[in-house]
Structures are given as C-alpha cells and as structure tokens.
C-alpha cells in the first residue's frame, strides 16, 4: 500500500499541488479503514476532520423524524467528504457513513487550519479546491431540486 505522500498526488482533489505543499498537508493526515456501517462523523459533531476517499463508498446522510434516514449523496474513490472543518463554527452538518468497507485519508482539521493560516499558498490552494467541491455539490443539489425524473409537472404531452 502506498504511503499518504505517495497517494495524494494522484488524488483529483490534490491534482496540481506542488510537492512541498502536498507534504505540508500530508503532515496532518492519517489512514483510516472503516467497516461497512461505521460512521466517519455525525451531524452536530465537531468537524475536526475531513476525508479523502481511497476506496469504498461513503454515504452522506440526513435523518428526519418523518422521512427516516435519507442518503443525499455518496462519495467514492477520488472524492472528498466534509468541508465544515474550514467553515466556522466547525460543526458537521450531515452524517457520513461507510456503506461498504472503505479506506480514507483523514486530515486533522485544526492542524490543517493552522498550516493554512501560516502558509497562505497552502490555504489558497485548499480553499480553491474545497470551493470547487462545494460548488459541484451546490449545483447538483439545485438540479435535483427540480425533481427531473418525475415530478408533478410530468404530463401526457411528452411522456417519452
């Protein structure tokens, strides 16, 4: 198995980061393995980590009394989970659960924030990447709000 330093340059989230900056980030990271059903974080927890998925699948969930547990999104190899570590008050907004045997690189949020504060290049690069992830999820959420595949607007006029 490759070390974190060897793996990160191949991960889409870190693509293009120079070696010293990657090494700085990798200093805050550890490998974690999760069995199916184990949680990475729960809604309301301190968001003191974010995760880079190496293998397996992570389900992003929300729980409501009427709806039960809904999976809103999934993150597979190459995706990242969590941006609350970067946004005050650093509290997780969703549950994240391994839906199968999963390996992640877990970054210590406080460690990374500290390094971002003292190294503006790292801070800017991570901010750009996290913003891209947030933008992608926001656009996807907005499109899904349209209920494309069968909302009440469907009619006989063009039923396929």
């Amino acid at each position, binding site marked *: 198995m490759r070390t974190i330093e060897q793996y990160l340059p191949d991960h889409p989230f870190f693509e293009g980061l120079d070696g010293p900056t990657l090494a700085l980030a990798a200093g805050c990271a550890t490998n974690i393995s999760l069995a199916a059903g184990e949680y990475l974080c729960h809604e309301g927890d301190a968001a003191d980590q974010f995760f880079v998925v190496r293998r397996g699948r992570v*389900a992003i969930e929300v729980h409501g009394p009427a709806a039960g547990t809904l999976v809103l999104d999934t993150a597979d190899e190459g995706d990242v989970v969590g941006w609350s570590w970067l946004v005050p008050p650093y509290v997780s907004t969703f549950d994240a659960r391994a839906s199968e045997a999963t390996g992640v690189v877990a970054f210590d949020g406080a460690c990374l924030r500290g390094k971002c504060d003292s190294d503006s290049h790292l801070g800017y690069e991570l901010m750009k990447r996290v913003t891209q992830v947030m933008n992608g999820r926001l656009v996807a959420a907005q499109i899904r709000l349209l209920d494309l595949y*069968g909302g009440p607007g469907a009619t006989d006029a063009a039923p396929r």
Partner: protein
Amino acid sequence: MPRLAEPTAVQPVESAMVPRLFRLVDRRQDTADTFTIMLEPNDGVPLAFIPGQFTMLSAFGVGEVPISVSGDAHVAGPLQHTVRDVGAVTHALARTAVGDVMGVRGPYGTGWDVADGHSRDVVFVGGGIGLAPLRPAVLEVLAHREDYGRVVLLYGARSPEELLFVDELKQWEDQGMEVLVTVDYGRESWQGRVGLVTKLIPRAGFDPMSTLALICGPEVMMRHTALALVGRGVRASRIRVSLERNMRCGVGLCGHCQYRELFVCVDGPVLPYAQVTGLLGLREV
C-alpha cells in the same frame, strides 16, 4: 410591407394519420408508475422501426400520446413500449388488459444511428424513463458487441425503486457493458451511488476522443450531461440527444412540436447535440 407568400396547401397524409390496430398480448409493471406493454398487430404485419423512433399510441376515446419504442428492433416479437402513467391517455393505457385493442401510428422520427459508433466507444446516458428509448439502441450494440469498443451505460433515476430494467442491467454487464447507476435519493439500505448522473462521467471507462454518446432524459439533465461529456473531451458532433416535445401529428404537419426551426417529430426526436446546443435551455423556443 412585403406580402407574405400564399400558404401552400398541405395535403393530408391519410395513411400516416390513421392508426393501425394492435392487441395487448402481455404487460409488465416495471415500477409503481411505469409499465411495459407488448402489442401484436391485428393485421399480422409487424411494425418495423429503428432504435430511437416513436409511435403515437391511442387509447380510444381518450387520446393519443407519443411513446418511444423500447423493444428490440431486430428480434421478431411483440412491439414494446415502456410507458409512465402521468396523464389521461397514459393512465388509460395503464388500465388496459391483455386482449384489449389500441391504435398505433408510426413509427416516426429519427433514430440513434448506433452503427455510426462502429469501432468506437459508445456511451449511453439515460435519465429516468429516458432509459426506455435508449434500450433498443443498447440491444443493437450488444447484439453486435464485437463491432464496438468500450460500451458504457450511465443511468440516473429518482430513487432505487424507480430504476427501470433492473434485471437487464445485470445481463448487459455480463454482455460486456460497463453499467454505472446513481439515484437522486436513497434510503439507508441503498448501497449504490447517490447523486446526479453527471458525476458518473469522470468514472466511466471510455476514450472521449473516440466516443459516440447518446443521451436521453429530461432536457435539463441532457444539457448538463452533454456539457460534462464535452468537458471530458467528447466532441459535440459525436453527442446525440433525444428531445421531448409535444408531438401530435407525428408527420410535421401540425406544428405542436415545433422547436424554433425544427419539427421534433420529423427532424427529431434524436438530434445531434451540436445542432441544438444553443436551443437547449432557451425559454419560449
């Protein structure tokens, strides 16, 4: 002010407007609101079609609807349509029983022309009921699997319960197709992917420089999918979409399906993305 030319008298195409009678010989409930009907012609003459074409199905006394053919174009057998029960006519079709007779006009419109993907990778992207019009093209490609490179299906649906052709998806994988599925929302028990169908595009194994992509689904989905495919390097000219418009006559006479300069019933429903890039997403076209 220049005088408009006298309108040309339009000759009614009687044969195209008179439905043939077909009898329901079998029926399958695919999801809670989607079903597949199998029809045999009363006159015994099979209805030949090319993948991507649609027919006008009549529920007598209620009306007509345009529905794409979802069966295999190259295998003898009943004519298949997969229909979602969303309005008066489709609801009437949903209530038909084996032995009932309905009207069929067509087939109409353009096809996917999958043979154009020979020696290339072929990527199918279906959204919701949009997988049904793609199915004949999928079957054609898989029947001639050796003529194509990598074959990929990216399929998105609202929920796991609304996925179509679930058993067939597994068979298609066994026949050498990469099948990636995602849903908009899943329960805790759903082990698959959740998210937009576009998120599957970076994960699929195909060579964008040598790919024919066929997309069928809601227009917003097709627009975002086409953009994502172009973003991965697929040429716009190698992407086809199937447009959904209010087809009525099916032969370009009535104008109900006019989409600026196009009549979707005759110029489409399958059109090159490059031809409609500027139209998709426009309001009041």
